[in-house]
């Protein structure tokens, strides 16, 4: 889902009741948020095929595909859109099932406006964080691409905590050379400290590449 990464997080409302859809839309509008509304799970599913990110306010009981069905299908498709269930009667079993399947919240109808908005904000924040992280990772990857083969080998070894000497022994070169490579790596990866380099390598999954 690489294309998703470019999207701004959006809010989707899926509820069979037009009145409930309108009310939620207005609540969101009152805090300056816009949303897309869908009357059936199937309609939203069609939209989701183009890739969605953000959060879905999802009714559990709907004619045709139910909210739980939709959650299952989104999970199967690998979507990581945040799901907030809104249901007329949330029993414990349903809540547990929904949360286990990765739902962010389960709200009961009729809902308190602040609770709903908080849940949406929470979902959006989480999404924004994820997005920041995704962007950082992309930057790391780009930087990593600029490294030469030897520099990558050096980076992969130093982040495991090996001393320059040990690295030199492993690669069969002089310690001095390794030192120069290492400085080059720190520079290209824009790492302010060794600790940061280790973190970046971890995010890039470097040790695992060994």
């Amino acid at each position, binding site marked *: 889902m690489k294309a998703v990464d470019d999207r701004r997080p959006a809010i989707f409302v899926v509820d069979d009741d037009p009145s409930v859809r309108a009310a939620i839309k207005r*609540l969101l509008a009152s805090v300056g948020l816009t949303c897309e509304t869908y009357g059936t799970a199937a309609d939203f599913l069609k939209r989701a095929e183009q890739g969605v990110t953000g959060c879905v306010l999802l009714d559990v009981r709907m004619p045709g595909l139910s909210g739980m069905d939709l959650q299952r299908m989104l999970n199967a498709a690998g979507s990581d859109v945040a799901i907030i269930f809104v249901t*007329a009667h949330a029993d414990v079993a349903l809540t547990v099932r929904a949360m286990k399947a990765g739902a962010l919240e389960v709200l009961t109808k009729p809902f308190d*406006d602040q609770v709903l908005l908080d849940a949406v904000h929470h979902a959006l924040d989480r999404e924004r964080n994820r997005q920041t992280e995704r962007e950082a990772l992309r930057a790391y990857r780009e930087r990593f691409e600029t490294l030469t083969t030897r520099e990558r080998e050096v980076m992969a070894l130093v982040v495991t905590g090996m001393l320059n000497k040990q690295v030199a022994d492993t690669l069969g070169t002089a310690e001095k050379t390794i030192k120069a490579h290492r400085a080059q790596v720190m520079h290209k990866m824009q790492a302010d400290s060794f600790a940061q380099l280790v973190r970046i390598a971890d995010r890039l999954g470097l040790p695992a590449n060994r």
Partner: protein
Amino acid sequence: VLWPPNAVLTAFLLFVPPRRWWSVLLGAAAAHFAVQLQVWSPPFVTAIFVTNCSEAIFAAGVIRYLTDEPSKFDTLRRVSIFVLIGGLAAPFVSSFLDAAVVSLFNDERYWHVWKMRFLSNALAQLAIVPAVAGILNGSGAVHKWPLGRWLEAVAVGAGFILVSVAVSADVGRFGLANAPLAPYLPLLLWTAVRFGSAGVGLSVLGTVLLAVISALQGDALFPTMSSVDRIRALQVFLICATLPLMCVGALVEERQNADNALRSTDMLKSSILASIPSLVAVIDRNGHIIAVNESWRTARDTGVIPELFSGELDASYLNVLAAVANRRSANARAAHDGIKSVLDGSAPGFTREYFSSEGGHDQWWMMSVVPLKSSEGGAVITYADITARKHAELEAQRSRDELAHTTRVWVMGELTASLSHQLNQPLTGIMGNAQAGRRFLDATPPNVTEVQHILNDIIADAQRASDVTRTIRDMLRKDASQDEVLDVNDVVRDTTLLIASQAVIRNVSLECELAPSLPMIRGKLIQLRQVVLNLTMNAIEAISEDWTVGPRSVLVRTERIDAKSVEVVVADTGLGLPDGGDQQVFEPLFTTKKTGMGMGLPIARAIVEAHGGTMSADRLPSGGTAFRFRLPISRRAAE
């Protein structure tokens, strides 16, 4: 003078069916030969037997062919046939054979013998056959004769003896010599009138005997004639007298029988009429009362029904009703108009059930007017007390309503989750909209336009919630409403309001296909809703939770079937009914559900039938079940 054997044989042949005639003829032959062979030669006796039998067989055969009851002499037709065939034609024809045989064997003159034979045979037939038949038919009745009739019979017999004594003693003094048989006539007529054809036969027989005695006494009868002429005169007189007398006897008997039949019919009718507990009156074309039965009279005297006041004979009942109607009674007005429509032929009949509390009696009456099928017109009016029946009907309806209410409450209980969902949706809309509205008002500047839209939506939602609660309240209420004119589509829509969420909760798609512009029906809204609710709920529950093969849908369809009825079909895609279930489902306490009461469908069917409709269940070829019910289109609404 008269030759009895042929006549006796004839009488027996009339009584015995033809297939057993041989036994009678055998008996006759035995008697004949036993007597005759002592005097005559066997060939002659045989020939005479044959000719004698020919007369009897001819007479009996033809009479049997012409009449239905050959042995009865009680109608003019039967007597006429007997007189013409048995009394005249048979002796006439057979006498030719007789004369031939006698003249051949005994060397007598042919025409002389024929004349003698014809007259004596004819007289014998006329006198003996009815007498024998009368004795055979009437021997039972004679025992029941009252004393007066016995005395009368004895008097007639005595009269005959007196007359014959008088005739023989009186010769020459009163000029009876030339009309010695005239005195017998009144007696013969008497017997004809009082004792019928059998009496005529017997009295002719008596006259013959008495007259023969007289005739043989030499000069008592027709002293100037030869003895042969005397006998012939006697025969001719008796034959000529007998013919009309037999007819008179038959006429009298016929008339008497008709009278008796009429009297017994009248008695039958009047006792039937008297035994009827309903009030019955017969009126003529102008409304005048011709006859009433005992119940009517009693009711009139006690004043149970106001319409019956002064129902005197000869009073115009229409006027009575008109007078009562003017004073107070709508019932009298309806009765008046109903009778009038029957009398003037504009209606083939009239029936009306109504309630009357006249005189402190709460009573239901059924009044009916049936036209008299006579050229004079008129009608029969009946008032039947149907209070007991009405009470039973009302009682039955009350318990049906009770049961319907109980099952309705039960069903609503089953629907709790659905109903709370159904109410929660508009409440969520209201709450969310209201909260959004507050935020729009708090904003600077306040977004008033948006708040106006919000308020409109809130009102719509509140209306929706109130519709649901009203429908719930209706369904839980005890229904005492009257029939009203309804659109079946509205009934289905109301029901959907209650049950849509049930379908959603059970993940079943509920669809309606409502025929546009259905004709109206008449009925009780709540009960019909209950029927649709019941069928739809069953249909939804028929699709079990773990049923994942194939569609999960319930379709409610309305349709006009023909000029007279509309149909509602509720079809599901569930597992379908078990074998034979399409009949069993309507039986009380039959259920396929875990928590079922088994009362829903019997009640639903009872409700539909109380509305004049029908309900059935079909197994669908695609699996699943279709319940359908039909309701008659309201004629009043169609007008």
